[in-house]
C-alpha cells in the first residue's frame, strides 16, 4: 500500500474501525445462523460460532496492523499512555530520570571536551595535509626536536613533497605604551605561514616575502591583543607600537577564531602578536646547532605521509653530508614529517579517551540501575500486562508500548542531563589544565546534541530491553489465576536482577581502582621533595631589551643595582636571580669531567645548567652539602668555579670528595677551560615534580663573559610572599620605567600549577568513581529491599517457627554478600586488565598496586553492606502475625 493511502487511512480511522467490526460481526452472525440450521439453540449457536472464530479482538488487532491504521497512531497512543503511566508513579519516574540524567549528563560533558579537542579537525584549511617537520640528532637522544635555522631554508628549497614550508618561533617582547609595560608572546613567522594555514588577516594584510628579511619592523596583532590593548580600534593599522623599545608598524589584525600556535606545536603559549621571521645572518650560520625553529608544511595533494617522510629524510641526509666528518658521526642528523593533528592532540588523546571510558562505565551502571527498577516495576505490572495480553494485545504491540515508556524516560533523562552537562562543562573548563589544547573551542553544539540524543536512544534500548522482554513473556494462566495475591517473579527474573547488580559492583570497582591509583600517585607526587623550600618565595621574570642594553657592563650594572634595591626592601630576607627556575625547564649542556670514566653505556655527559646571581640558592632554600656557596670573591678575574648537584657528584666521583675536581663544557676534545667544583648542593626538581631528577650545575653570574640579559629574580620573604609583588615591581621601575615585570608568582603557586593536570584527572575520575559507587549502592539496596518485600511472608513463617532476628539478618545480608563477592571478584579481574591504560598517569605506583586494590574493595564492600543492612533490618522487624495475615 502506498504511503499516501496509508496516511489517508489514518484519518479515516474511525470509519475503518467500524468496518472492521461490521465485517467480523457479519461473519459471526452467518456462522450462528448456520449453526441454528444445524439444530443448535440460538445461544449455543452463537457461542459455538464465537469459539470457532477465535479471539475477536486479537483478529481485530492483527487486521488493524495490516490495514495500516497502526504505526503512527499507536506511537502517539503509546507515548500518551507512557506519560500517564510514568506520571502515576512519580517516585519511580524521578529516580529513573535522575539516574539517567547523571549518566547522560556526565557523558555529554566529557564528550563535548573530546569532540572539541580530539574529534573536530584543527581550525585550519585542509588540516589533514598539514605536517610538522622535525629533526632528530643523536645528541638530544634522537627524539624529534625542532629544526635549526639553516635547515629550514634547505627544507624549503630541496623538498619535493610540500606545497609550502614555513617556520615559526615563539619569543617574548616587552610591550610598552599607555599603562604598565607588559610582557607579551611574539611569534616570529615565515611570510608564507598564514597562507599555508589558509587563514588571512581580517584587517590589513599579511607579510610579504620581501618583508621576511631583516630590517622590517612590522607586526600583525591577534584579535585578543587588539581588543585588549587597542580597544578594537581599526585605525590602529599603520600606526606604530613599541616592542622591546623599538617602533613596529601594525599592518594587520588576525580574525578572532585564529589561534596559533596550538598546544603541542611548540613549547610555550599562544601568540599575542606576529612578526616576520627574518632570519639573521648569525642564525643562518648556526649549522647543526640551535634547533629551535618549529616547521609546518602542507603536503601536495596526493602525497602520502610515507613519501613525505622519505623526502625529508633525504634532505636531512644531504645536509648531513655538508658537515665536517667528525661532527657528522656524532650528530647523526635525521628528519621526520609528523601529522599536525597527532602533535597537537596526541598527548591528551589517551587521557580524554580514558575519561570517556570511565564516564561510559558510569552510564552502564546507571542503565543497570534503571533496568533493575523497571524489573521490580514489571513485577507490579504483571497483572496489568497479563490482562492486556488476554484482551488481545499482541506481544509486539506490548513491547512497543514498553519501549515508548523507556524512550520517554531516556529522553527526560537526556534533557535533564543536558542541563547537568552544561553545569559540569562550565566548572570543568574553568579548571582545565594548560596541557589540554583548544580549550576555547569546548562547548555545546549540534554534534554534542546529536550525541546526547543517540545516547538517550541507546540507553533506552540498554536498560529497557531485558525488562520489557521479561515482562511481555508473562504467563497469563498463573498470573490471572493468582487473583488478588501479588504476583511472584520467576527465578530467571531474579537471576537477571542479580546479574545486573553484580555487573554494577564490578564496574564501580574498576572505576574505584582507577581513581584509587591516581590518588596514590598524587600522594606520591605531593610527597616528592622538590629539593628547595617553596614557602615564602616570590619570583618574577625580567628580560632586558637588546637595543637599550647593548653593552655587557650595562646589563651587569642593572642586575647588580637591582639586587641591591631588592635587599633593601622591608620584609625581604634573601635575594637572588637565576637563568632557570625550579619546576619549569632547563637546558641540556654537554660536559666532560676530568679524570672520571663516564659510567658505562653512555656516550656524552649531559646536565642541566643555570647561571645564578646573588644568594639565589639560599633564597630558594637549596641546601649546601659540602664546600661553599658562591661569594664576592668569585669574579671574572678569579679562577672559574662551579657548584654541582648531589646526584652529579655521586655519579662521577662516587666515594670521593668532589671538591676540587674539575669539568669543562663540551666533548672531551673541546677547548673550554676547566671549571673547579667548590661545593655540592642538594638536587632540585628542575622539571615537573613527577619527572626524574636531572643532575645540575651552577655557575656564578659574575664569571660569565656574556651575561644573560634575561633572568628570573627570586625573593625570600619573612611573611607572605605575594605582598612583596608591588614593591618588587616598584623597585624594577625605579631602575627602568619601561621594563615589564612578568610572571610574578609565589613558588607555592608554581608547584600547584605543575600538579594541575594530575589534579584535574584525579578529581574527574574520583567524581565518576564516587558516582558509580553511589549508584551501585542504590542498586544493591533496591534488589535486597525488593527481595525482602517479596519474602515478607516467608520471613514471617520462619520467625513464627522460631527463627531469631539474627538469623534473618544474616540470611538477608548473606544474600547481598553473595552478589557483592561476585561483583568484586569480576571487578578485580577487570581492573587488573584495564589499569595498564592508566600507566602513563601513574607515579611510583604500579597498576596492580595491592594496597589500592584491597582498600577500594573494602570501601566498596562497606558501602554496599550498609546498603544491604537497611533492608535487612527491616526484614527483622517483620511481625510474624502481620506477615501471615497479609496474605
Amino acid at each position: 500500500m502506498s504511503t499516501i493511502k496509508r496516511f489517508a487511512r489514518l484519518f479515516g480511522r474511525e470509519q475503518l474501525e467500524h468496518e472492521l467490526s461490521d465485517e467480523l460481526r457479519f461473519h459471526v452472525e452467518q456462522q450462528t445462523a448456520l449453526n441454528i440450521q444445524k439444530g443448535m439453540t440460538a445461544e449455543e449457536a452463537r457461542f459455538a460460532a464465537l469459539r470457532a472464530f477465535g479471539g475477536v479482538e486479537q483478529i481485530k488487532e492483527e487486521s488493524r496492523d495490516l490495514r495500516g491504521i497502526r504505526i503512527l497512531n499507536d506511537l502517539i497512543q503509546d507515548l500518551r499512555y507512557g506519560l500517564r503511566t510514568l506520571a502515576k508513579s512519580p517516585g519511580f519516574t524521578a529516580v529513573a530520570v535522575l539516574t539517567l540524567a547523571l549518566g547522560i549528563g556526565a557523558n555529554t560533558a566529557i564528550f563535548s571536551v573530546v569532540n572539541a579537542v580530539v574529534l573536530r579537525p584543527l581550525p585550519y584549511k585542509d588540516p589533514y595535509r598539514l605536517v610538522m617537520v622535525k629533526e632528530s640528532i643523536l645528541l638530544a637522544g634522537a627524539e624529534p626536536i625542532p629544526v635549526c635555522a639553516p635547515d629550514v631554508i634547505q627544507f624549503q628549497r630541496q623538498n619535493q613533497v610540500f606545497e609550502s614550508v614555513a617556520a615559526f618561533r615563539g619569543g617574548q617582547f616587552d610591550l610598552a605604551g599607555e599603562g604598565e609595560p607588559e610582557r607579551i608572546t611574539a611569534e616570529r613567522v615565515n611570510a608564507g605561514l598564514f597562507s599555508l594555514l589558509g587563514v588571512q588577516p581580517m584587517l590589513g594584510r599579511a607579510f610579504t616575502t620581501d618583508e621576511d628579511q631583516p630590517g622590517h619592523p612590522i607586526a600583525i596583532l591577534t584579535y585578543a591583543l587588539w581588543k585588549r590593548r587597542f580597544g578594537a580600534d581599526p585605525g590602529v593599522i599603520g600606526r606604530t607600537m613599541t616592542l622591546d623599545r623599538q617602533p613596529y608598524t601594525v599592518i594587520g589584525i588576525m580574525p578572532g577564531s585564529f589561534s596559533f600556535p596550538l598546544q603541542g606545536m611548540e613549547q610555550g603559549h599562544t601568540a599575542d602578536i606576529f612578526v616576520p621571521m627574518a632570519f639573521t645572518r648569525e642564525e643562518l650560520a648556526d649549522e647543526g646547532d640551535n634547533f629551535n625553529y618549529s616547521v609546518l608544511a602542507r603536503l601536495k595533494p596526493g602525497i602520502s605521509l610515507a613519501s613525505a617522510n622519505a623526502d625529508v629524510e633525504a634532505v636531512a641526509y644531504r645536509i648531513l653530508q655538508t658537515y665536517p666528518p667528525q661532527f657528522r658521526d656524532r650528530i647523526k642528523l635525521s628528519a621526520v614529517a609528523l601529522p599536525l593533528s597527532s602533535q597537537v592532540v596526541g598527548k591528551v588523546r589517551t587521557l580524554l579517551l580514558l575519561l570517556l571510558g570511565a564516564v561510559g562505565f558510569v552510564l552502564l551502571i546507571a542503565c543497570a540501575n534503571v533496568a533493575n527498577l523497571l524489573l521490580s516495576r514489571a513485577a507490579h505490572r504483571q497483572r496489568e500486562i497479563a490482562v492486556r495480553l488476554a484482551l488481545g494485545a499482541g506481544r509486539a504491540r506490548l513491547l512497543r508500548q514498553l519501549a515508548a515508556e523507556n524512550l520517554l524516560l531516556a529522553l527526560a533523562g537526556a534533557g535533564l542531563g543536558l542541563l547537568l552537562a552544561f553545569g559540569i562543562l562550565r566548572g570543568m573548563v574553568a579548571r582545565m589544565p594548560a596541557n589540554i589544547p583548544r580549550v576555547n573551542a569546548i562547548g555545546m553544539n549540534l554534534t554534542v546534541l546529536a550525541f546526547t540524543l543517540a545516547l538517550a536512544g541507546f540507553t533506552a534500548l540498554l536498560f529497557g530491553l531485558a525488562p520489557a522482554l521479561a515482562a511481555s513473556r508473562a504467563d497469563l494462566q498463573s498470573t490471572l489465576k493468582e487473583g488478588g495475591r501479588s504476583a511472584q517473579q520467576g527465578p530467571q527474573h531474579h537471576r537477571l536482577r542479580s546479574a545486573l547488580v553484580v555487573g554494577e559492583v564490578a564496574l564501580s570497582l574498576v572505576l574505584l581502582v582507577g581513581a584509587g591509583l591516581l590518588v596514590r600517585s598524587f600522594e606520591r607526587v605531593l610527597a616528592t621533595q622538590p629539593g628547595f623550600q617553596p614557602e615564602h618565595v616570590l619570583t618574577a621574570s625580567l628580560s632586558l631589551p637588546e637595543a637599550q642594553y647593548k653593552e655587557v657592563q650595562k646589563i651587569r650594572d642593572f642586575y647588580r643595582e637591582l639586587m641591591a634595591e631588592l635587599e633593601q626592601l622591608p620584609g625581604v630576607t634573601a635575594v637572588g636571580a637565576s637563568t632557570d627556575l625550579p619546576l619549569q625547564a632547563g637546558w641540556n649542556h654537554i660536559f666532560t669531567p676530568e679524570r672520571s670514566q663516564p659510567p658505562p653505556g653512555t656516550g656524552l655527559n649531559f646536565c642541566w645548567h643555570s647561571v645564578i646571581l646573588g644568594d639565589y640558592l639560599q633564597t630558594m632554600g637549596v641546601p649546601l652539602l659540602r664546600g661553599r656557596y658562591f661569594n664576592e670573591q668569585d669574579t671574572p678575574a678569579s679562577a672559574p668555579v662551579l657548584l654541582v648537584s648531589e646526584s652529579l657528584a655521586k655519579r662521577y666521583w662516587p666515594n670521593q670528595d668532589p671538591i676540587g675536581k674539575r669539568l669543562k663544557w663540551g666533548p672531551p676534545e673541546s677547548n673550554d677551560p676547566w671549571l673547579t667544583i667548590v661545593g655540592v648542593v642538594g638536587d632540585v626538581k628542575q622539571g615537573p615534580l613527577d619527572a626524574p631528577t636531572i643532575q645540575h650545575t651552577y655557575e656564578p653570574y659574575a664569571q660569565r663573559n656574556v651575561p644573560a640579559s634575561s633572568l628570573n629574580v627570586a625573593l625570600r620573604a619573612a611573611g607572605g610572599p605575594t605582598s612583596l609583588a608591588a614593591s618588587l615591581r616598584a623597585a624594577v621601575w625605579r631602575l627602568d620605567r619601561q621594563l615589564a615585570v612578568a610572571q610574578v608568582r609565589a613558588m607555592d603557586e608554581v608547584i600547584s600549577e605543575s600538579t594541575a593536570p594530575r589534579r584535574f584527572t584525579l578529581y574527574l575520575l574520583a567524581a565518576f568513581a564516587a558516582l558509580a559507587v553511589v549508584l551501585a549502592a542504590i542498586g544493591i539496596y533496591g534488589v535486597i529491599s525488593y527481595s525482602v518485600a517479596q519474602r515478607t511472608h516467608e520471613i514471617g513463617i520462619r520467625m513464627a517457627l522460631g527463627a531469631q532476628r539474627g538469623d534473618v539478618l544474616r540470611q538477608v545480608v548473606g544474600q547481598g554478600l553473595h552478589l557483592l563477592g561476585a561483583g568484586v571478584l569480576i571487578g578485580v579481574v577487570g581492573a587488573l586488565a584495564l589499569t595498564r591504560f592508566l600507566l602513563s598517569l601513574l607515579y611510583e605506583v604500579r597498576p596492580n598496586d595491592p594496597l589500592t586494590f584491597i582498600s577500594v574493595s573494602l570501601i566498596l564492600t562497606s558501602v554496599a553492606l550498609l546498603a544491604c543492612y537497611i533492608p535487612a533490618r527491616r526484614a527483622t522487624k517483620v511481625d510474624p502475625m502481620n506477615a501471615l495475615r497479609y496474605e
Partner: protein
Amino acid sequence: MGKPADLLQGTLDLLILKTLKLQPMHGWGISQRIQQISEDVLRVQQGSLYPALYRLENQGLIVAGWGASENNRRARFYRLTAKGRKRLEAEESNWERLAAAIAQVLAATS
C-alpha cells in the same frame, strides 16, 4: 474422512485468490466455499482468513467493497484485480509444478 488438514504456509493466499476468481465474495463465503469444495478437508481458521484478506488487499491483488449478501445483509465483498489474476496464474503453475514434483518423489521412494 479424516481430520481437516492444516493449510500449508502460503497456500491460503492461493486458495483465496482461486475462490475469488469465480466471483466476488465476502469473507464468510470464502471460508465456506473452500470448505465445501475440499469436501471439509480444508478448513480455514478465521484468525488467519481476515489478516490474509487484508494482506492481499494491501498487495493490491484484491479490492474490497460493501454490498448486500444473499440474505440481504451488509457485507464486505472482495474481488480479484488484474494483478491478482496474474499472481493467481503464477501461483497455480507453481503449485502444479510443486505437486507434480512431490508426487514424483513419493512414487520413486515407494
